[in-house]
């Protein structure tokens, strides 16, 4: 077997520490819940630290793929275990680390079948990490499914509203996406004549004819797009968000939907740039419709999580719009939006989680006046809402700015549509904030405690990250540019 490791395999170390955590959890007796939680927190923390290390250790001046790990896996089919980091996946790895870690902390108070929960949660995250770091098409598909399958049990077992329906719907819906991906991937690999699944090898210009690219691109786009919540294939997302337990919602909306967008970028766009150029108009249209549609449909929702679900649809539309612009700015914005939206949604669900755990309701109509009772918990939600509205000072603003500018430049009408959605997104979010947190003191909840420091920690981290990248977006954008500029310049 041929191996190639440039130094210590940090990327694999992330996967391995997840795996180690998973195994360790399996070996802890189920009664020792606290131990399980600590193990989860420690191992997720390790992955976060590794992700942070990678993020800063990446040599931006050199760019390109770094921390490459290559290992022949199935040589007969040209399948390699090939991990690498570049400007596109490092933000996502960091995001995964953040959401993973904070997700564990968010579930600190859970009591029910803790062991299984964290085991599945780790499995889920292994898939997510794996997908973000791999550069091999086969493994992309494998990780895609690995990250989907635990979702079923996580939602169906620990979920809330219509959980079984939602779990089934989500799983089948997303696997339907994979039903488009696998044929398309195979199609590309076979037609390349290279007998390899290596993305780097396959993305060389001229590997595929334009018509092949067009054909494969649309399949890949739709396949991954389903996971990215592309309109009109988004309906799994609100339903799934609502039903899932909080940490799962966090990972789900925060990271899993990014997998879809990342897949579009890494597979569809990387391999079929001409297909991309051909279908960009359609992508932009769907994205723009999704942006405004998500916001408007969300206006009428009465469940806190539904609201967030629809806002996710809208925000993922922004990612899609960015990806459709064929410009550096668009790509930058899209990747930044992936990151920012991930953190923001995680914050949303994390704070809703706290509120739900206390009040046992997510119905907006039953809440109200919470700001007086739990000001800190409320303010976390409000920060998320502000981020969602694209308020400057928070990371989302920059992402939306970049995407909207480049979209407006390339597709004026669709861009305008997306910009107009900003008004409604403000209306949408402020209305929720008002109905949930403002208004007179709610007697029902008067005895509830505000969030303590320890429990508030995950939310604090998320807020801090939103603010950090809101005030200092270059930190992230410089990273993304190392990938996006060479990529756009390399386009035929």
């Amino acid at each position: 077997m041929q191996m190639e490791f440039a130094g210590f395999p940090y990327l694999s170390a992330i996967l391995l520490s997840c795996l180690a955590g998973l195994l360790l959890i399996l070996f802890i007796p189920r009664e020792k819940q606290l131990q399980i939680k600590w193990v989860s927190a420690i191992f997720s923390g390790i992955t976060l630290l590794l992700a942070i290390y990678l993020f800063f250790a990446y040599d931006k001046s050199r760019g390109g793929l770094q921390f490459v790990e290559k290992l022949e896996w199935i040589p007969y089919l040209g399948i390699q275990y090939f991990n690498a980091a570049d400007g596109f996946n490092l933000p996502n790895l960091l995001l995964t680390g953040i959401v993973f870690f904070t997700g564990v902390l968010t579930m600190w108070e859970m009591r029910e079948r803790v062991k299984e929960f964290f085991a599945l949660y780790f499995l889920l995250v292994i898939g997510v990490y794996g997908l973000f770091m791999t550069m091999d098409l086969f493994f992309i598909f494998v990780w895609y499914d690995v990250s989907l399958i635990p979702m079923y049990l996580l939602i169906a077992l620990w979920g809330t509203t219509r959980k079984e329906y939602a779990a089934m719907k989500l799983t089948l819906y997303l696997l339907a996406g994979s039903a488009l991906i696998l044929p398309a991937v195979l199609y590309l690999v076979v037609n390349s004549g290279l007998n390899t699944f290596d993305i780097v090898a396959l993305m060389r210009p001229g590997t595929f004819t334009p018509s092949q690219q067009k054909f494969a691109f649309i399949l890949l786009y739709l396949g991954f797009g389903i996971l990215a919540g592309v309109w009109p294939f988004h309906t799994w997302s609100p339903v799934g968000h609502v039903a899932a337990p909080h940490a799962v919602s966090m990972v789900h909306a925060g990271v899993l939907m990014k997998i879809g967008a990342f897949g579009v970028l890494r597979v569809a766009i990387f391999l079929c740039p001409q297909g991309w150029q051909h279908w960009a108009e359609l992508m932009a249209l769907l994205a723009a419709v999704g942006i405004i549609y998500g916001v408007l449909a969300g206006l009428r929702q009465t469940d806190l999580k539904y609201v967030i679900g629809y806002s996710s649809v809208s925000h993922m539309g922004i990612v899609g719009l960015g990806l459709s612009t064929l410009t550096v700015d668009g790509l930058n914005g899209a990747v930044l939006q992936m990151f920012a939206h991930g953190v923001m949604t995680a914050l949303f669900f994390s704070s809703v989680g706290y509120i739900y755990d206390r009040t046992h309701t997510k119905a907006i109509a039953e809440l109200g006046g919470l700001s007086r009772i739990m000001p800190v918990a409320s303010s976390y939600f409000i920060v998320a809402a502000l981020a969602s509205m694209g308020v400057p000072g928070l990371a989302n603003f920059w992402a939306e700015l970049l995407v909207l500018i480049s979209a407006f430049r390339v597709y004026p009408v669709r861009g305008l549509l997306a910009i107009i959605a900003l008004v409604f997104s403000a209306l949408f979010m402020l209305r929720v904030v008002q109905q949930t947190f403002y208004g007179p003191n709610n007697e029902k909840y008067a005895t509830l405690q505000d969030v303590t420091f320890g429990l508030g920690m995950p939310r604090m981290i998320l807020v801090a990250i939103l603010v950090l990248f809101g005030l200092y977006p270059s930190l992230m954008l410089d990273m993304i540019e190392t990938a996006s500029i060479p990529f756009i310049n390399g386009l035929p």
Partner: protein
Amino acid sequence: MMHWMLISPELYYLTAAFWLLVACMTGPPKPKRDYFTALSLSAVGVIISLASVTLQGILFSQTYRIDLFAQVFKVMLASGLFLVVCICTELNGIRERYQRELYLLLFVCTLAMMMLVSSVHLLNIYISLELSSYSLYILVALRKQRDMGLEAGIKYFLIGIFASALMLFGIAMLYGATRVSHIEDLIQVLPGLVDNPAVIIGLLLTLSGFFFKLAVFPFHLWAPDVYQGASNQVTAYIATASKVAAIAILLRLIALTGDGSVYLVHVMVVLSIISMTIGNLAALVEQDLKRLLAYSTIAHAGYVLIGILSMNDAGYSGAVFYALSLLVMKFAAFLVVVQVAGDGRNLRIEQLAGLHRRSPVLALTLMISAFSLAGIPPTIGFTGKFLVFAAAMQRGYFTLVLIAMINVVISLYYYLLVIRAAYLLEPREEPADVRISPALKSLSIAMTCLMVVGGIFPHYLIELARAAVRGLM
């Protein structure tokens, strides 16, 4: 004498069968002792098959071929038998008096299938196929719940003889048109005769016998009833070993006809699509777990056909791998069925309720096998599907792969229902814990590991399958 060494697995199984036959005729049945006899016999069989895996030779006036392909399948069959015997600890589904006959018939059937995978002469193939079928007809009918067993037996039998008559007529047509009875001659004469309807239709009819074994549409109609009607262990055997043998012989035949006939490919494409579609659709509403697995078998037959009809190395090796994966994952599923239905009755899905507490190991095995059957990575079932689909794509069958993938999605629905029952449903009244012996527990863990490890590190298995296929050509 080298000559006899070549067929040592067959000889061994023949001897074992006679031993059991003698045992049948002597003294009253002692289930425990019989079980261990059968278990040790089958375990030795596995060892012998493994030992003879590298043998090569042509025997019996060119009608019998020992090559890596056949030997690999023999190992699979032997392990299939061994595994099925393993779960015969509580033969509550079989009348006690006939338990030794059960072992006897299983051994004979395995022997017949071993001969089937080595046969290269149509007559041999036909007769071995009949032998294995007849053993199964009787096995099915041995069910303790007689009405069920009998009905299933009759249906199996009638459809079986109908299919075998079709096959025989096909052989007759083929022979009449080409004088070919030795399938290795087919490859020489066939290219000139692809337009001859008698040859091609004869070939199609010949294949129908194997389609029957594999439960491919339209010869699948026995499967649901037989799976439901037969006792759990017998069903397990039908679902594992018998399928493996059918895949093997189908592969051998198709590999030799080459991709001469576009028509045959088309027919197989159609049959494959219909098989997997109706299999998966019918399973959606099924409540009886065994019947559900029968439908899933039909669907899997469709997937395997994709590999076979690709008619290239990749497809054949994919099919071999698929056979192996089917053996493992179907067996794992039946292991759970047999253990949970301790009374030998059929198992309805809702009876799985609360399994995760009653027996976490079994629940896990069930879950992994369900995902594996559905083709979700990183399980062995996924790798099998992947190989097969990749092979089909090499031939440009994009639509076929797409349809197959859509089928995978549909199938996941009912597999998830099974998992849901095991993990989510709470039983209405608390059923007793599932008793499971440590040996079986470790077997079940081993199966789970095999499914996962085989999915993560499939390299060596794939290489093995490829080597086997190289021997085939």
